[in-house]
């Protein structure tokens, strides 16, 4: 063979040369952004199948976009969850509180109070609305951008900040990167940091609930970029095979750090369309439409609770800010993307809806924003009494060795003794 694997690539025959396709996003820094290629569907136009339908009946919805809120701020169609004004206001409040929390924690990181933070700006609806549609004891297996779930479930802000500061009050003993919360009492699974690992775990939890004849379901979240991980495939195949009572939420915020969704296969089809191949229900929703997100979660939760099995929901949204405090998105994407995003902002849309139906006004919104900022400020002050990320003396050195195993084996006991000796040399005054 003239041109085997070690050949120089010069073809010696008449077959066409192969070309590697490397995806490229439509817009880079400085580019004019035009989102007219995005199919923004008409609110209210998407059918809502019965929750007990065959999974295949949802196939068209996996490439459609379920929307409820119209440009006139009214709710339309069969997916309108018809929530009462109090519930809508509660949803608005939780989203506003989440945003206020993010703002302050971001500043805290910039002020050196902690090492790292991740905002969910623009994506608040994808965690707050599902948390409201689920039962409070349904188990959630989040990724790293679902702080809205904890806030919605009433986890104290002070506890969140203690964790972010890795301070004396941190229930996780300063072991986890900021925002990798855990709260069993709030049915909130410990966040990993490795991507998509939580998805087969959520399915396993849901299988266990079914094995035990429980009524609780599980829900998990991951980014569209993480759907490329094998773990997500594991989750889908297990969910499908055992008809597990689980909701798989893919938050498609378009960007995985600097890699656009095309590197997870987004150029070819939607992420909800993954469901079609597994034969499970799939819904693609406007992730910036809190009512659509709520309705989709409610549909999937009712289906799962009635032994109808899993649902994969793609929340089509936009990551308005950097991946984390360690990221600078101006280096790889056009700043106009955020301002031109055709699906708006979830908090503004819900606020405008409440105003349109006569249940809210700008003054009350201003008061709410102020109240949220004050709440966060007070919690921050409270948490700072426990210290900020610093010299590492917040937790007794011995705690570094605890919880590796249930009991301390001899080798860790020896290493703990070493660490304590070192402490006396490094920080003799402490």
């Amino acid at each position, binding site marked *: 063979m003239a041109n085997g694997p070690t050949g120089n690539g010069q073809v010696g025959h008449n077959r066409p040369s192969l070309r590697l396709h490397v995806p490229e996003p439509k817009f880079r820094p400085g580019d004019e952004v035009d989102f007219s290629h995005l199919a923004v569907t008409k609110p209210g136009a998407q059918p809502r199948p019965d929750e007990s339908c065959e999974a295949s009946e949802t196939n068209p919805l996996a490439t459609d976009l379920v929307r409820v809120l119209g440009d006139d701020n009214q709710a339309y169609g069969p997916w309108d969850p018809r929530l009462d004004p109090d519930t809508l206001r509660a949803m608005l409040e939780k989203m506003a509180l989440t945003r206020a929390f993010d703002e302050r924690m971001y500043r805290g990181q910039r002020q050196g109070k902690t090492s790292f933070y991740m905002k969910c700006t623009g994506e608040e609806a994808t965690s707050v609305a599902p948390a409201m549609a689920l039962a409070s004891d349904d188990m959630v297996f989040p990724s790293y951008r679902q702080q809205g779930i904890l806030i919605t479930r009433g986890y104290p802000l002070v506890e969140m900040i203690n964790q972010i500061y890795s301070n004396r009050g941190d229930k996780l003993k300063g072991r986890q990167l900021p925002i990798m919360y855990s709260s069993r009492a709030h049915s909130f699974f410990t966040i990993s940091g490795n991507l998509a690992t939580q998805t087969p775990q959520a399915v396993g*939890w849901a*299988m266990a609930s*079914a*094995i035990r004849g429980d009524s609780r379901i599980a829900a998990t979240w991951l980014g569209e970029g993480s759907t490329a991980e094998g773990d997500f495939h594991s989750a889908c195949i297990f969910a499908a095979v055992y008809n597990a009572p689980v909701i798989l939420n893919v938050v498609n915020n378009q960007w995985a750090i600097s890699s656009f969704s095309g590197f997870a296969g987004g150029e070819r089809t939607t992420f909800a369309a993954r469901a079609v191949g597994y034969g499970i229900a799939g819904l693609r929703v406007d992730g910036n439409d809190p009512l659509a997100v709520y309705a989709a979660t409610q549909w999937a939760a009712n289906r799962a609770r009635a032994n109808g099995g899993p649902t994969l929901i793609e929340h089509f949204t936009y990551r308005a800010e950097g991946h984390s405090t360690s990221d600078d998105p101006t280096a790889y994407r056009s700043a106009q993307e955020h301002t031109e995003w055709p699906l708006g902002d979830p908090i503004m849309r819900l606020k405008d809806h409440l105003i349109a139906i006569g249940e809210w006004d700008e003054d009350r919104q201003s008061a709410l924003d102020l109240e949220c900022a004050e709440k966060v400020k007070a919690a921050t002050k409270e948490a700072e009494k426990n210290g900020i990320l610093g010299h590492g003396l917040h937790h007794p050195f011995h705690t570094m060795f605890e919880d590796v195993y249930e009991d301390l084996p001899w080798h860790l006991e020896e290493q703990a003794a070493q660490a304590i000796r070192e402490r006396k040399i490094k920080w003799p005054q402490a």
Partner: protein
Amino acid sequence: MASSVIEDDTPFGLEDAPTRSLNMIEAINDALDIMMSRDPSVIIMGEDVGFFGGVFRCTAGLQEKYGKTRVFDTPINECGIIGAAVGMGAYGLRPVPEIQFADYIYPGLDQLISEAARLRYRSAGEFIAPLTVRSPFGGGIFGGQTHSQSPEALFTHVSGLKTVIPSTPHDAKGLLIAAIEDDDPVIFFEPKRIYNGPFDGYYDKPVQPWKKFPQSKVPEGYYSIPLGKARKVRDGEAMTILAYGTMVHVVEAVAREKGIDADILDLRTLVPLDIEAIEESVEKTGRCLIVHEATRTSGFGAELSALVTERCFYHLEAPVERVTGFDTPYPHSLEWAFFPGPIRIGEAMDKILEA
């Protein structure tokens, strides 16, 4: 230092318990059966473990007895098997997943290393992963490079995991019960070469069934062997031999054949390790041979050698020797050239005694 070694064939206060002669497969099946009947949170899953009862028959009859929701087949997806088991553990179940061959465990490594091993630590005890991952390992059955590996050192290197390897039916049952009851994730490697009978290293001789050997006498009912306690296989003065799994039987046979008065320890658990038993033995003999079937570089023998050297150096009268598999994939046709058999072990013994 008080010895923590449990003498061979002392069935832990169960002297009067009725025994049955079982091979290792039957002993494992018995342990699973007992734990499933004692604890409704124990569930078994894995490839072919359900109706069929596992490719090595370790789960035979259990689905029929306990039902399809407690013993079931899985997709061929080790990441999913371990990942789902982690979620089940978080729910409150006590999963005992089977990975069909240790060589197949790698797709599940992230779920073991980053997840199961870390849950307790990263959640400060809010969530635990009380799983026992059973998997046949080791060579000697003409399994080629993908059905023969001994990857234990990948797991002993991970803080948060325990690694257990039995060498007899008696121990397999007691250790498996202890592993299932343990609230930490346990890797339970079953030496498949000795599923049906012990192995003296001479591959061309017919397999002697377990029932000819006293270690096949398995007490009926429930008993457990604590993790982290070595078994004294043979008391001797000439040298300490540290081994586990199949190699316990091989070193015992070689020492007998060569007339060496060896002090042989079956480690049984690599993490946590019975360091007291090791120190006590090496301080007595002054010589130490470490034998495992796994490849040599960064194998668990390296850890053992370092520990013995660090802790017993002034008692040593000869350099610590390691006998291991070669640093190659496990070759199909040359499997017995790879295997650390009587010649390699015998030479190392001579070298230690001549030093």
